[in-house]
C-alpha cells in the first residue's frame, strides 16, 4: 500500500463481502423455493427473496466498485484521496441505506413506485444519490489534482455515468410503456454501458500491475475497449425495446447493435491474455491473475455469447421472458462484475494488509467452485429456458403446465447454487482471514491448475 488513504478500500470491501454473502444466501433460498414451492411461502414470499437477491447484488457490486476506485485512484493519480472523512461518511450513508433496505424488504416495506432492481423506498434512493454525489466529488477532486491517466479518465466517466443514469430511477410515469423505456436507461445503460467502462479500467489497472506491460500499451487497449463498448452498447439498448409497446424499428436497431456488443468483451479477452503473454512477469499473486483472466473469459461467454444467443429479434420473439434470460443474467453478472470485484480484492487485500499474497490455493479453489457453480447453473437454466420456450411459445402450453416439466432442471440449478455459496464463503474466508502459516504451502500453489 503506497498511499495511506487506500485503506478506505478495505472498509468498502468488508461491506461488499458481507452483502455478497447475503446475496448468495438469498439466491440459494430462491433456488430452494423453485424446488420446494411451499418453503417459507408464508414467512418470506418469493418476491421478497428475489428483491433481496438482486438488490444485494447491485449494492455489493457498487460497494466493490467504490472500493476499487478508492484503491486504484491514489496509485494512478499519485496522491492521497481528497478527503478520507467524506469517503467514510459516504460509506456510512450507503451502508445505512443498504441495511435499511434489507430490513425493510424482509418486512415487506418497498417503494410505492417500485420497479425491478429499484424497489428501494424513495428516501433510500435519495440517500444513494447523496452518497454518490459525495463519492463523485471526492474522487473527481482527487483525479483533477493529481496525475491524469487513461485509466482514471475512463473510470471516472464510468462512475459519473452510473450516477447520472441512476437518476432515471426517480422517473416512473403512469404509462407502462414509458416506464419500461426509461427503466432500461438505468438497467441497460448501466450493465451494458458505463459499468463496462469501470470494468475496462479496473482490468487495465490489474494487468498493468501484474504483468508489468507498459502503461502506453495498456492505455491504448483501454480506449479501444471503451470505444467499442459505447459505440455498440448505447444503441444496443434497442434489444430491450422489441415487445414493450415501442416502435418496430427497434427490432433491427437492437439486433444489429447488440450483436456487436460482443466485440468489447472479446477485446477484453484478447487484451488480458496478450498482456499476460507479453508481460512474462511471474507475479506472485496467482489468485488475482486467475480471477482477472477468468473475468474476461466468463464475461465474454456470459455477457457476450449468452447475450448474443437471444438478442436477435427473431429469436427473442420466442425466448423473451423465459428462463433463457435468467441464464444469461446469471453468467453475465458473475463473469463481468462479480469476477472483476473478486479479482481486484484478491490483488489488493494482501497490499492493504501489508503482507505477501496469502491463502492462494484456497482463493483459487474458490474461483473454480464459484465459476463451475455459476456456469453449471447457467447451463441448466438455458436448457430449462429452451424447453420452456418450446412448450409455451411454440406448442402453446400454459405457463404453469410448462413449469411443471422443468423440475429436474431447477433441482440441478439448486445443486449448482449450493456449490456457488460454498465457493463464495470460501473466497470470503480466503481473503479476510490471513494465516500466519499457509494452509497449503505456496510450493504446491505453483502447481495448482492455472488458466
Amino acid at each position: 500500500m503506497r498511499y495511506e488513504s487506500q485503506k478506505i478500500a478495505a472498509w468498502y470491501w468488508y461491506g461488499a463481502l458481507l452483502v455478497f454473502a447475503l446475496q448468495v444466501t438469498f439466491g440459494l433460498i430462491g433456488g430452494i423455493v423453485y424446488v420446494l414451492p411451499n418453503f417459507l411461502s408464508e414467512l418470506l414470499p418469493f418476491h421478497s427473496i428475489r428483491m433481496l437477491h438482486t438488490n444485494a447484488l447491485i449494492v455489493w457490486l457498487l460497494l466493490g466498485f467504490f472500493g476499487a476506485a478508492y484503491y486504484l485512484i491514489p496509485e494512478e493519480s499519485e496522491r492521497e484521496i481528497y478527503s478520507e472523512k467524506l469517503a467514510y461518511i459516504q460509506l456510512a450513508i450507503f451502508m445505512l441505506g443498504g441495511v435499511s433496505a434489507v430490513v425493510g424488504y424482509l418486512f415487506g416495506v418497498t417503494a410505492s413506485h417500485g420497479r425491478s432492481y429499484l424497489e428501494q423506498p424513495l428516501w433510500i434512493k435519495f440517500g444513494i444519490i447523496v452518497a454518490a454525489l459525495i463519492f463523485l466529488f471526492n474522487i473527481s477532486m482527487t483525479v483533477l489534482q493529481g496525475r491524469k491517466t487513461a485509466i482514471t479518465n475512463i473510470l471516472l466517466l464510468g462512475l459519473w455515468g452510473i450516477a447520472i443514469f441512476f437518476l432515471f430511477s426517480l422517473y416512473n410515469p403512469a404509462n407502462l410503456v414509458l416506464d419500461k423505456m426509461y427503466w432500461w436507461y438505468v438497467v441497460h445503460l448501466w450493465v451494458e454501458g458505463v459499468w463496462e467502462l469501470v470494468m475496462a479500467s479496473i482490468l487495465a489497472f490489474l494487468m498493468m500491475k501484474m504483468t508489468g506491460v507498459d502503461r502506453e500499451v495498456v492505455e491504448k487497449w483501454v480506449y479501444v475497449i471503451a470505444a467499442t463498448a459505447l459505440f455498440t452498447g448505447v444503441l444496443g439498448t434497442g434489444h430491450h425495446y422489441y415487445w414493450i409497446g415501442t416502435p418496430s424499428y427497434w427490432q433491427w436497431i437492437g439486433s444489429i447493435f447488440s450483436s456487436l456488443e460482443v466485440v468489447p468483451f472479446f477485446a477484453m479477452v484478447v487484451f488480458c491474455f496478450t498482456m499476460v503473454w507479453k508481460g512474462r512477469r511471474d507475479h506472485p499473486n496467482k489468485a488475482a491473475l486467475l480471477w482477472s483472466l477468468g473475468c474476461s473469459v466468463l464475461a465474454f461467454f456470459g455477457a457476450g455469447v449468452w447475450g448474443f444467443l437471444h438478442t436477435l429479434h427473431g429469436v427473442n420473439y420466442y425466448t423473451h421472458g423465459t428462463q433463457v434470460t435468467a441464464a444469461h443474467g446469471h453468467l453475465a453478472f458473475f463473469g463481468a462484475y462479480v469476477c472483476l470485484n473478486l479479482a481486484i480484492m484478491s490483488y489488493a487485500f494482501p497490499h492493504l494488509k501489508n503482507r505477501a499474497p496469502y491463502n492462494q490455493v484456497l482463493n483459487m479453489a474458490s474461483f473454480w467452485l464459484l465459476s463451475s457453480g455459476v456456469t453449471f447453473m447457467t447451463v441448466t437454466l438455458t436448457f430449462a429456458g429452451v424447453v420452456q420456450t418450446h412448450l409455451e411459445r411454440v406448442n402453446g402450453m400454459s405457463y404453469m403446465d410448462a413449469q411443471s416439466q422443468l423440475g429436474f432442471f431447477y433441482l440441478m440449478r439448486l445443486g449448482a447454487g449450493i456449490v456457488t455459496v460454498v465457493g463464495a464463503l470460501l473466497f470470503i474466508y480466503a481473503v479476510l482471514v490471513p494465516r500466519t502459516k499457509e494452509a497449503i504451502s505456496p510450493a504446491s500453489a505453483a502447481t495448482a491448475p492455472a488458466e
Partner: protein
Amino acid sequence: MIHESFSRQAPDSASASAVASDSGWGPLGTLPGNPIMWILIVSELAVFGAALVGYAGARLRDPTGFVAAQDSLDRIAGAVNTAVLLTSGLFAALAVEARRADRRAAGRWLLLTAALLGCVFLGVKGSEYARELAAGHDIDSHPFFMFYYLITGFHALHVVLGLIILAIVAWFDSLENYETGAAFWHMVDLVWIVVFPCLYLMR
C-alpha cells in the same frame, strides 16, 4: 480540453500516421489518421454491413413487395448524390495532400468545398425524403421503407457528423487531424457507395 488535443502545430514528419505507427497500437498504427477513428470506422462498417444483410434477408420473404417499393425511389437523384459525395471525397483527399505540402490555406479551401458538397448531398437527400413522405411512404408503411429510412437516415446523420468533424479539422489543422477527419469523411463515402446500389439499384 479541445485545445490541448487538437494542436495547431504540425508534426515534423511528412506523414502524421508515421507517428502512431510503432507505438503500441498494433495494426491500427499503420493506418493514416488516429487509431480510434479506425475503430469507429470498422464499427460503422460492421453496423451498415449487418443492416444490409438484414435487409437482404427480409427481402427474401417478399421480393415482389420490395421491388414495388424500390421502384418508387428516385434512382437519378441517388446517382447524382453518389457523384456529389465522390467529388466531395476527392476534395477532401486533395485537402490532405495540400496540408501535407504545408499549403494550409489551400487545404482549408479544399475542405470547405468538400463540406459544401456534403451539404448538397443532404439537400438532395432531404428532397427525396420529402417526396417519399408526401407519397405516403413512411417508416411504418412497408419493411422496405423501414430499412430505407433506417439505413439512409443513419448514413445522413454520419454526413452531418462528418461536416462537424471537417469544421473542427479546418480549425485545428494539424496533419494528423486532417488525416483523421478525411478518413471519417471517406468512410461516409464508402458506406454510401455500398448502400446506394443495394437499396436503389439491385432489383
